[in-house]
């Protein structure tokens, strides 16, 4: 744990060691703990939105199931896979930094960035689908206010139309989409920030700033990246899958 045992490295001083730390290990642990405290505040932040979701879903179960069924389950599942692979490549980037193998470390960071951007690209396609189906809530888009076409009984199935389950109203469906855009939008913002952080890591890795003694930035941004992945692990079933079993016929 945190104790002072000066090695030759510490006496000569690693160039990245700040003066207020005894040694590199203490510095790394302090950084990791600080990041965890930040992630707890992040969890509280997303927790509020999960709470709003839970309350409104309990209030309007039929509308939430109807609206959820309209989301694209294939794109949602593919994006979940993309994020999990990116978490794996991020974990491997930390590993290669720890063992001091720079080339695979850079490759893993670049792969993570590409996967993150892939996720955002697929998300953009989904948002555009919502736009063309008039599912952006309220008047966020003044030229396309909320007002999806509704699937009537007996008409041929049209995937652009919303199928309302018994007991659901459009106003309630709109509430689902407010929550959907708030949660996935905040998640996407975190992904964009993560992509920026990864770009910084890649540039500094190319400059050779990280080594087995000093790799806190890789470790800490890794923690952030995994946290964003965890948020999506919960968002995917709650938003995309919740009403599927009503309409599997």
């Amino acid at each position: 744990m945190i104790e002072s045992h000066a090695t030759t490295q510490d006496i000569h001083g690693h160039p990245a060691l700040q003066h207020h730390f005894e040694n590199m290990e203490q510095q790394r642990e302090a950084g990791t703990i600080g990041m965890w405290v930040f992630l707890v505040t992040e969890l509280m932040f997303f927790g509020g939105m999960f709470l709003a979701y839970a309350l409104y879903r309990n209030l309007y179960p039929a509308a939430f199931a109807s609206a959820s069924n309209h989301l694209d389950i294939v794109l949602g599942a593919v994006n979940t896979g993309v994020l999990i692979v990116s978490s794996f490549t991020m974990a491997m980037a930390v590993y290669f930094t720890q063992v001091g193998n720079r080339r695979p470390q850079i490759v893993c960071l670049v792969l993570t960035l590409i996967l993150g951007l892939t996720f955002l690209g697929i998300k953009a396609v989904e948002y555009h689908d919502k736009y063309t189906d008039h599912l952006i809530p309220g008047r966020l888009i003044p030229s396309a206010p909320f007002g999806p076409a509704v699937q009537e009984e007996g008409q041929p199935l049209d995937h652009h139309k919303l199928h309302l389950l018994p007991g659901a109203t459009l106003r309630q469906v709109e509430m689902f989409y407010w929550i959907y855009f708030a949660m996935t939008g905040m998640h996407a913002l975190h992904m964009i920030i993560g992509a920026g952080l990864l770009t910084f890591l890649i540039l500094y890795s190319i400059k050779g700033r990280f080594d087995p003694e000093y790799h806190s930035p890789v470790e800490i941004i890794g923690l952030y990246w995994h946290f964003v992945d965890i948020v999506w692990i919960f968002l995917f079933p709650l938003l995309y899958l919740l009403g599927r079993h009503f309409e599997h016929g």
Partner: protein
Amino acid sequence: MSEHIVPVKVYLGIFLALLVGTALTVLAAFVDFPWRLNTIVALTIASVKATLVVLYFMHVRYSPRLVWVIVASALFWMGILFAFTFSDYFTRNWLSIGY
């Protein structure tokens, strides 16, 4: 250096488990579980996946006790947030006092 380096084999195993979990949760969504258990099943799978990420990808299993305490405090406060809010919302119509 007392830092624990997680072996690649462990990372690979967790990675595969997460992919299997994702497939499971999609399959389970199309099954009609009795007593409306669908949400419970989905949340259980998500929680297991999240726990694997926290313990292995985020190294909590090998981290100092202080990190464990911080993670536990997050779960504790989330518990308060949900429990107290639900205990209000879900009991509002237990009494009709004519307000």
